């Protein structure tokens, strides 16, 4: 009945099919085969990455919920928890940018409120090809509009994020969405099915044929036929999800639920068997009771649909009417579609007929696990070779202008202006200014969060590149005045069946694990997105880290811009002359070469603690992470959006310099673990003393003030320009590609 062709069409290998036969002790029917295929897809089963993900540190004194649930949670004090996670929607966003991105937002929001948390903030990490390509501009416009369309309507502010551009993402953009919610620390709700006989309910949008095999699609490479997969992309309805969100939170306050889970990838299939597996129970449902949008849907289609805005939940006995009433208030109809059983089986009926019967645990927890072969790419030594002395550096002022107008570094106003970043009136640092920061009403605290990654660094060295992503996200959070307390990751890689890609993935996970351990930031969950390839070309390996930090006193939140003229400007951290993997090399010399910046995790940790402590004690007035574009760009960004405050700064010639690249490295090199701060009046001595005590380099480099940007190296003025002039270049760098916004 099940032939070879059908098995292959479902993406199962011969070995995997053999395993299905063993589990069932018989041949599966088509519905069962479909269920296995989505649950054992890379997207749902993490079969290539699970082995490596075990290395991540997941415990810590503040961790309330680690990986394995719908989202992670950390204790933020006052009896509250921050519930957060990041997830990718790369494949759908390439095929249908608006809906792909919109449903990505909708999906991660559901993960958060499923835990009983009120979502309060969104961040996005976006990567596109070069904006010189019309196709890329169309994708970028669609993705940004889709995020705006969903987030704005549902009323959750998009408070920050990152946008990067590189040719490697031309055929495969990355759309990673991070959401954070607040819940009572003792009121987290889990995705568990327990208590035989308890009712299983379905609530939300009706099930249609959209998104069938979406998870399988997300587990394959793209080719020229990918556009034909458009019908696989789901369509989002933020209004419906808003009703679902409010209704679910209201129901959760009643204590009537045993467990709840959203239907994301693999829809009804995934939610039923995961809830059963977590609770050690079975679940029996009747697909005929599932509300359907189209007629004639088969059990196969109903089980595999990825229609959006649907939830599955288990109700405590005797509380059914109460729960149904709350959903009715929100014009939602909760339907009982089955019950929890004690036999551990996922049993699917179509009216009277049994159409599938599979052990839930086998689907959720016993998926194939691969230790795939891994070896470094053959051209790695060539990638890492760089002789900066051989490069002819342009005049520094020209290089700075080129960097400021690079879409990667330029103002992202064109993007965040389309996002409602203020709704809920908690946003205390304006969007586009570093980490997102929201206050927590009812407490004196604020939360800061950042998402960061650097595909170029990881392309050159995935281990260090991943460490740098952890360090940068955490540093950004520290620059807002926060102490990092938890992380989530989104791993975007190519086809893991290729040893060079698998090596990148394994090395990156090692890097994240080591960095998180050293910085004492537990990873509470995340997402892996593989097969990010088009026509055999993989994206740069791109682990994206989301880090959450807590600021004890919201009045001490820092921004990146100078607050006043006449403040001492201090560079914290040490620079070494290095240009590998920098935006400068890419932008000015067209190269992605060399070793990414060196990273000493102990120094990084000391720096972050110093900055957060100096913020808490009001020693500093602004802090800005020194990242892409190096010190020269960082200083310029400290001036931008400050109301035109300039800076006059000087640094010495870097040690070991002397060649032609030395000044360029001093200005534009991206040495890690550096922060530019402006110091509160009269507190410079205190700051320097603390830095010395912490073993962190601290170099007074100048003062804020005037309306010019001056930067000297080794006694020679390298750049002397009007801040307004530089700011104009920076403001236009991205917007210029979208002519309708020219103004």
């Amino acid at each position, binding site marked *: 009945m099940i032939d070879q062709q059908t098995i292959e069409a479902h993406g199962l290998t011969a070995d995997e099919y053999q395993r299905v036969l063993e589990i069932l002790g018989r041949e599966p029917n088509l519905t069962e085969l479909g269920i296995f295929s989505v649950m054992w897809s890379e997207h749902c089963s993490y079969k290539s990455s699970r082995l490596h993900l075990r290395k991540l540190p997941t415990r810590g004194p503040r961790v309330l919920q680690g990986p394995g649930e719908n989202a992670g949670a950390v204790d933020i004090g006052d009896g509250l928890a921050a519930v957060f996670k990041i997830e990718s929607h790369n494949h759908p966003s390439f095929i249908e940018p608006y809906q792909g991105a919109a449903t990505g937002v909708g999906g991660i929001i559901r993960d958060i409120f499923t835990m009983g948390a009120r979502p309060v903030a969104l961040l996005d990490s976006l990567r596109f090809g070069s904006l010189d390509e019309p196709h890329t501009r169309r994708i970028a416009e669609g993705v940004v509009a889709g995020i705006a369309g969903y987030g704005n309507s549902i009323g959750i502010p998009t408070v920050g994020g990152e946008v990067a551009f590189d040719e490697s993402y031309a055929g495969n953009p990355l759309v990673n969405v991070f959401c954070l919610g607040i819940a009572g620390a003792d009121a987290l709700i889990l995705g568990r099915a327990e208590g035989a006989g308890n009712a299983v309910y379905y609530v939300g949008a009706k099930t249609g044929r959209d998104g069938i095999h979406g998870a399988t699609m997300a587990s394959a490479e793209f080719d020229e036929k990918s556009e034909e997969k458009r019908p696989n992309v789901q369509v989002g309805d*933020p209004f419906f999800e*808003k009703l679902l969100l409010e209704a679910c939170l209201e129901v959760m306050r009643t204590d009537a639920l045993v467990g709840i889970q959203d239907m994301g990838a693999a829809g009804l299939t995934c939610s039923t068997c995961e809830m059963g597996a977590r609770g050690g129970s079975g679940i029996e449902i009747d697909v005929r009771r599932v509300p359907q949008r189209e007629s004639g849907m088969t059990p196969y289609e109903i089980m595999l649909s990825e229609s959006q805005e649907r939830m599955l939940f288990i109700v405590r006995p005797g509380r059914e009417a109460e729960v149904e009433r709350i959903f009715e*208030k929100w014009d939602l109809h909760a339907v009982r579609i089955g019950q929890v059983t004690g036999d551990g089986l996922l049993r699917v009926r179509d009216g009277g007929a049994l159409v599938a019967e599979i052990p839930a645990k086998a689907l959720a927890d016993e998926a194939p696990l691969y230790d795939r072969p891994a070896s470094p790419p053959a051209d790695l030594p060539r990638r890492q070779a760089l002789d900066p002395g051989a490069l002819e550096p342009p005049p520094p002022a020209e290089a700075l202008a080129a960097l400021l107008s690079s879409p990667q570094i330029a103002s992202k106003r064109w993007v965040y*202006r389309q996002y409602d970043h203020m709704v*809920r009136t908690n946003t205390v640092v304006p969007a586009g200014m570093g980490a997102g920061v929201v206050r927590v009403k009812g407490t004196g605290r604020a939360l800061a969060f950042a998402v960061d990654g650097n595909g170029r660094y990881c392309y050159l060295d995935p281990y260090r590149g991943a460490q740098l992503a952890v360090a940068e996200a955490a540093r950004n959070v520290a620059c807002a005045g926060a102490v990092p307390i938890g992380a989530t990751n989104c791993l975007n890689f190519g086809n893991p069946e290729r040893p060079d890609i698998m090596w990148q993935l394994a090395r990156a996970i090692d890097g994240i694990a080591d960095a998180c351990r050293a910085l004492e930031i537990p990873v509470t969950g995340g997402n892996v997105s593989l097969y990010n390839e088009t026509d055999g070309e993989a994206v740069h390996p791109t682990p994206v880290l989301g880090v959450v930090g807590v600021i004890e006193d919201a*009045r001490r939140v820092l921004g990146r811009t100078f607050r006043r003229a006449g403040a001492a400007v201090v560079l914290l951290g040490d620079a070494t002359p290095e240009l590998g993997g920098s935006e400068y090399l890419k932008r000015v010399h067209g190269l992605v070469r060399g070793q990414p910046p060196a990273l000493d995790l102990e120094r990084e940790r000391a720096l972050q603690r110093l900055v957060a402590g100096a913020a808490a004690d009001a020693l500093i007035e602004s802090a800005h992470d020194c990242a892409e574009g190096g010190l020269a760009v960082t200083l310029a960004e400290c001036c931008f959006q400050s109301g035109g405050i300039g800076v006059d700064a000087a640094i010495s010639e870097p040690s070991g310099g002397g060649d032609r690249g030395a000044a360029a490295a001093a200005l534009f090199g991206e040495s890690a673990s550096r922060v530019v701060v402006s110091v509160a009046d009269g507190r410079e001595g205190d700051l320097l003393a603390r830095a010395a005590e912490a073993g962190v380099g601290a170099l007074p480099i100048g003062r804020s003030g005037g309306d010019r940007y001056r930067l000297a190296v080794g006694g020679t003025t390298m750049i002397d320009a009007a801040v307004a002039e530089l700011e104009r270049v920076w403001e236009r760098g991205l917007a210029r590609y979208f002519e309708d916004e020219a103004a």
Partner: protein
Amino acid sequence: MSTFAVVVFPGSNCDHDAYHAMKHVLGQEARFVWHKESSLDGADAVILPGGFSYGDYLRSGAIARFSPIMGEVARFAAAGGPVLGICNGFQVLLEAGLLPGGMRRNRRLKFICEHVHLRVEQTDTPFTRLAARGRVLRIPIAHGEGNYYADPETVAALEANRQIIFRYTAPDGSRDEAWNVNGSTAAIAGLCNAARNVVGMMPHPERACEAALGSEDGRVILESAVVALAAAAAGGVEQRAAAAQP
């Protein structure tokens, strides 16, 4: 202390923000009123908050105007009660016919969220009485359909009756089409009805009531209502006192 009713439509998403501003920032009584209710339960003023009522898939506010509570809001307005529609609430007031005109998509067709500058054009409404005429307020907008439109006759009537309350201007308060952020007719950012008790505005004063959020310029609008209600209550007491005299 006055009581502010914040109407909650399905899809409202600035309801909590309006509630927070009135209750926790200004220290007034605030209460949510679900759209299916048919009574305002003695509230002294009504706020229709921002958001995407019913998803705004049709036309912003087009469905919300049929909510049961809107009949009561219309009666409350007709009796002279102060009503403030913010963003989507303004759109609902337009759709309900409580204010004239309509909304189109923003000039450049994109959603815009940022601080803008508004000039206070008139002060004799319950929501502007504390503001000086000509004062420039820095308050955020967040909308995709805020491009106000009315035909020339209507605009002439609005001008003649001094119903245009706020206009988009340059930071120095000068009229300049470049600062008319969404392309609104006559740069109209807010207006009132002929009786002056119903005000609609696209910018969000509730988002500009605390220094931590970047501006406190919105307070003058909400505080005006508090003072107007207190004055009305005092006037009512005096009248009753006068009536009680032999």
